[in-house]
């Protein structure tokens, strides 16, 4: 187990879920993948399937309809997992906090580990957020390892 968990922390795969963002944060997440910012140099890979992922990037506001989808995606990610909320919308609801169909903040639905501020969040900030998320991930992995040894 130790080997697998350690390599997990060295090369985490991220899945990006957009629940109701204005696209501003979305395209910045995508921009992170492209040559200028190149998030792959940290071993991070963007994939489409939540079942392969370790890190969940959430952008945008949650509303009653996509809440179910968000929860579903979150539950499909295997343990240990880290959730990064990107942009003002995902953190608190942002400019849309007062709308009738908006739930303020992703953390009302699922536990969030890292909050990335900004509207739109800059790619540098997103990378910082993901790297911070990795530290948390490492901690979680270690905790799991201890548990495994303990049994």
């Amino acid at each position, binding site marked *: 187990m130790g080997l697998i968990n350690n390599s997990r922390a060295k090369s985490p795969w991220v899945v990006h879920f957009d629940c109701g963002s204005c696209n501003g944060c979305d395209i910045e997440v995508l921009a992170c993948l492209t040559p200028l910012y190149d998030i792959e140099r940290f071993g991070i890979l963007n994939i489409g399937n939540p079942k392969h992922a370790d890190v969940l990037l959430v952008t945008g506001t949650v509303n009653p*309809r996509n809440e179910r989808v968000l929860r579903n995606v979150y539950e499909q990610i295997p343990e240990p997992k880290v959730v990064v909320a990107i942009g003002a919308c995902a953190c608190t609801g942002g400019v849309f906090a007062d709308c009738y169909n908006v739930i303020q903040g992703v953390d009302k639905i699922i536990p969030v580990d890292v909050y990335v501020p900004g509207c739109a969040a800059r790619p540098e900030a997103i990378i910082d957020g993901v790297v911070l998320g990795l530290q948390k991930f490492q901690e979680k992995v270690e905790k799991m390892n201890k548990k495994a040894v303990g049994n």
Partner: protein
Amino acid sequence: MLHNQTKETNEVQTTADKLFAETQKLADNGYRFIIADVFEAEDNFELIYQFGKDYDATTLRLTVPKGAEIPSISPIFFNALLIENENQDLYGLKYKGLVVDFGGRLYMSQDEVEAPPQSMAGMNVSLVKKWNKKADTAKKEG
């Protein structure tokens, strides 16, 4: 009077019964349907239908009392479907003869909030939920 960028649009006053026929006339003349808008007043809705041909716009305007049924123009212009469903969602308008009827659930999910009346806009979900509950109990009691 409505304006577009450069000039006033031609405006035609009509009624709910004549709406379908007027729309058909415009369709036959090569107009396309652009958008329908709703202005909400105390006890009636003002509906505005925008049509376009080249760079001109023509407006159909009508007033209907709240709760009245409006003939859907989606059999003529398929693209009216989305906006009419949207209005059903957000204003509680009722359309007759929609091509596809989402039943007021285009945007809002089954077990969740309804759009509040425009006078209550700007409230967030938790408040609206409370409002819905109140409305529900009021319905039961009344």
